[in-house]
């Protein structure tokens, strides 16, 4: 989807404003990005960029949210869906 934003964090905020249910999946209560979610600006991890989430973005950039996935069966055997 397309988001109008000047920086990575603005783009994220725009996304969670239009999709509030994503917020708890992406960030902790303190607003920090969760440790099992990686954010990529094009092919580079945002945590490796010098300005991190304050990095400027343009309309040709792609921001990807890459969560960890395990696949297969439920991974909590005592709590199966």
């Amino acid at each position, binding site marked *: 989807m397309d988001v109008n934003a000047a920086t990575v964090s603005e783009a994220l905020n725009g996304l969670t404003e239009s999709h509030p*249910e994503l917020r*708890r*999946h992406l960030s902790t209560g303190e607003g920090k990005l*969760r*440790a*099992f979610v*990686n954010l*990529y600006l094009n*092919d*580079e*991890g945002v945590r*490796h960029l010098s300005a991190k989430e304050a990095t400027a973005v343009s309309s040709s950039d792609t921001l*990807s949210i*890459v*969560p*960890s*996935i*395990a*696949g*297969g*069966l*439920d*991974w*909590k*055997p*005592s*709590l*199966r*869906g």
Partner: protein
Amino acid sequence: MATITPPTALPELNTDDLARYSRHLILPEVGMEGQRKLKAAKVLCVGTGGLGSPMAFYLAAAGIGTLGLVDFDVVDASNLQRQIIHSTKDIGRKKLDSAAEKLTALNPALNVVKHEVMLSSANALDILKDYDIVADGTDNFPTRYLVNDACVLLGKPNVYGSIFRFEGQASVFATKEGPCYRCLYPEPPPPGLVPSCAEGGVLGILPGLVGVIQATEVIKLILGNGQPLIGRLLLVDALNMRFRELKLRKNPECPVCGEHPSVTQLIDYQQFCGIMPETPQESNVKNGIPQITVKELKRRLDAGEDVQLIDVREPYEYQIAQIGGKLIPQNDVPQRLAEIDANREVVVHCRSGARSQRIAEFLKQNGYSQVANLAGGILAWSDEIDPRVQKY
């Protein structure tokens, strides 16, 4: 970029080998020497499911000398949509026996080593140490972190693949020069936040795509040819058929492969992933939510008691099987609270009790004082009350 040290004396190829692998032998990148490397190689496939099936099949076909398989599961009808190493006649059979039979039928020269165990901190190092490369085809976070850490500690490449719905990931972790799984994902998601394939579904073909990518990487590592997926995460989007690549970097602060590792032996991975063993007291009340058995619910419904049964599964699941609950898919519950009477007792159910537990907790937080979770959900109902209710 060879990461495997070739044995000093590679096995010779016999006349059967020359005929069988002729298409490899004429590739300059494989050739006689490469095929002999494959013959000498020992690869461990962790899991013989969706990813393990194509991986093991192609590795066996390619002439890998020794293929170790780790699995303790039995074949279920719901596996066959993607776990192509198993057949309909294998339902109920050990996956290891079923897989070994197919692999040796394909390639009788293959040495299959069966490890019928659940990989754990107690046995992982002992099992992995005899192999050159580990291919991770597991289906859960604790085992993924276990495989990763064991590979880092032993210095074995971890050929990683993972799938969910229509998307897959693949990479090569734990090589000397490259990052490990923990560099990418330092921590697992908390239990319950990320749905599993059993909840979210998976396109049957997807593990085929990703498993074959893993097999390709295994072969390249053995040959020491090409550019392996070290420091790169390949993303597969089957729905749009797009392959993308992201850069991965070794994390100098990684607790297992960083400069000052804090994890120097295997840990309790269930605990690391937030999975606590249940105590008997917890089985009746979980996180403040009473757990009602299917027998108790049946008795109360039969007695005409006033119970609002809420089914929080998805509509397509409801089409497969239902037990008379009102369908409000879990993600719709917050917007549809008005349809659930807070003055009456509520019993929430799903396929087997995980999603409904979370929704029951949510309802309790939203002022519902009488909320219970149906333990075991549809699956328990089918087992204990009415086998005509279709399990899936």
